[in-house]
């Protein structure tokens, strides 16, 4: 069952990747990246468990944190592009 779950996660990663390739909007791509990271976290947790090295869970934690900051950075970027450049 572990491998089934892992396989499902990898397939989903591929699906998210396709969404990231297709777009068509900026937000679709961000959504895809977001999904992708969550799946990576799950995958890493599973593999860490399977290989009997729970100390590697730190890695999953790091991914989860970084993903969040990445999404916020994207939003800030989108905002910055939209904002009027200078005060009139």
């Amino acid at each position, binding site marked *: 069952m572990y491998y089934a779950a892992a396989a499902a996660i990898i397939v989903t990663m591929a699906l998210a990747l396709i969404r990231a390739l297709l777009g068509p909007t900026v937000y679709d791509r961000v959504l895809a990246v977001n999904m992708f990271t969550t799946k990576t976290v799950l995958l890493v947790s599973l593999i860490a468990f399977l290989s009997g*090295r729970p*100390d*590697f869970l730190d890695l999953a934690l790091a991914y989860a944190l970084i993903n969040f900051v990445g999404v916020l950075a994207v939003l800030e970027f989108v905002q910055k592009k939209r904002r009027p450049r200078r005060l009139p």
Partner: protein
Amino acid sequence: MEVLGHYNYWVFAFLLTIGLYAVIAKPNLVKKLLGLSIFQAAVFLLYISMAKVEGGTAPIIQGGAGEQVYSNPLPHVLILTAIVVGISTVALGLAIVVRIREEYGTIEEDEIQAQDRDR
């Protein structure tokens, strides 16, 4: 498995190719930097792949585990180092691209060259 035993190295070769192509052929400076990142990441893959040992685990020694096999720590150290080199180069490159964009109003190589000729 025998046939695919070199799969990592093939992927390394293709990634390197893709990155190198972007660096040489794309006129957009940011695209060049992205290509450079892929190019460097490919080399990371080469090193990390050679460190792998069948049935091994990461080189963090677990007490009393007896005959545990560990993967080779040295390439890991080298690549830790190289990753940092990668981001340093990219950061500096981006700063230069930003300044180029401010001075020239474009980040396409051919347009910049055209402007340079006029100076």
